[in-house]
């Protein structure tokens, strides 16, 4: 395990990670006093490399690599158990969301590649159709995750029970959906860089 080194000019709490989380979530991670109640109740913590309270600790100490390369930020399913019970009322699921989206922005290789692939495929379908297309989700995921047979044994019984639709259902105003994806991404980027990315959008979008 590597040593956390602090040079005489370092300011661990001010290297931007705490401020970044604060800006993205409004959460003051310094409020966390490391009681571990979040990790104690987390259904996923035994599968994580960093327990949830350790993620917050790493943020407190400005350890970007530790945080962004952790599996924890990808395994969190935002079940809200931690936040519901946190004595300091730190919205940890929100913090996890912020760290994850930052890791994506910074193009850091996700420790849980398959989880990232799943969400990418999911959102790709929503961007395209406006709604989820479950057959497309499984197919797309299997292709990208290089797991051609994942969930295949479920596919047939689901199909025969009418649980899967072969044809995707679509939103009528798909252009607005695509615009939403585009402008949300712009706003996201704008908040990170502090600069306007796109000109002001039209007041209404033609349907």
């Amino acid at each position, binding site marked *: 395990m590597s040593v956390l080194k602090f040079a005489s000019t370092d300011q661990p709490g001010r290297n931007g990670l705490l401020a970044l989380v604060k800006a993205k979530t409004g959460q003051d991670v310094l409020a966390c006093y490391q009681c571990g109640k979040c990790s104690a109740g987390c259904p996923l913590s035994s599968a994580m490399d960093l327990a949830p309270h350790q993620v917050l600790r790493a943020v407190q100490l400005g350890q970007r690599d530790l945080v962004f390369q952790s599996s924890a930020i990808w*395994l969190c399913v935002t079940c809200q158990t931690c936040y519901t019970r946190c004595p300091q009322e730190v919205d940890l699921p929100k913090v996890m969301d912020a760290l994850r989206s930052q890791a994506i922005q910074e193009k850091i290789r996700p420790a849980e590649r398959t*989880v990232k692939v799943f969400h990418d495929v999911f959102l790709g379908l929503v961007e395209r159709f406006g709604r989820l297309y479950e057959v497309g989700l499984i197919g797309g995921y299997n292709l990208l995750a290089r797991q051609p047979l*994942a969930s295949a044994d479920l596919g047939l019984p689901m199909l025969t029970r009418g649980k899967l639709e072969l044809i995707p259902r679509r939103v009528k105003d798909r252009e*607005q959906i695509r615009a*939403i994806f585009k*402008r*949300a*991404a712009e706003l996201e980027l704008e908040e990170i860089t502090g600069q306007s990315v796109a000109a002001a959008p039209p007041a209404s979008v033609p349907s």
Partner: protein
Amino acid sequence: MSTYAYYPGCSLHGTAKEYDRSARLVCQALGLELREVEDWNCCGASSAHMVSHWLALSLPARNLQPVEKMGLETMTVPCAACYARLKDVSCELKDPEVRAKIGRVLGDQVTGRVTVEPLIGTLTTQEILDKAASLIVKPLTGLKVATYYGCLLTRPPKVAQFDDPENPQSMDRLLRTLGSEVVEWYFKTECCGASLPVARTDIVLDLSRKLLAAAKKAGAEAIVTACPMCHSNLDSRQGEIRGRYGDDFKMPIFFFTELLGLALGYPARELLIANHLTDALSLLQGRGLA
């Protein structure tokens, strides 16, 4: 007759068709008119907020706009995951700055005046419970069920503003009204693994197995849910759990609307209960409920 905007969400048009069907039937029977939100889109589910804050707020926000145009005030949401997203954005919209930004992303004004509630909440007011009690055709007498609320209906309490996050009671009250016996167990709001089943099946199998084992130990013959994600994890993964751990639970998993539908006299066939991957019909037939 009260009228609600109804946001089915993607699952209810796919893997959880039986939830959609049973929800519509029981609402009709109880005198609630459901009007589907026009041209609704996916709320972003558990994926959007993983990636982008503003996408996670804007996708559900787009579904609130048509409700006002439909002249309705309240939206009822059967899916717990969709409810969490929609309720979250309806809270966030109270902040004018956030409202402006969401408006910018949508390319349209959004007011946030729509009240969002979960279908389980809509169907468990005292008024509805009384009405249901008066309409029971086939009481679920003797059916021992464990109520499973999952993560997102009640949490985080500041946003969800529904029932109790540690020991919720609404579904219990409904099922007792229908005559069934609600077993005491402590996993009502423990997580089933949510959206991980595809990418990390191993974790979901482990979590779902713990829930199934606890319900069985508590003496439940079936688990009742109010969330298509919970239903899918618990219902469709029992075969894999058997394969991996050797536990053969054969535990039927119901949507609460299915049991409500049965009690109100709808046949199991019409409620699409046969759609379940874990056999639920045998239990019902044994009790003369199907």
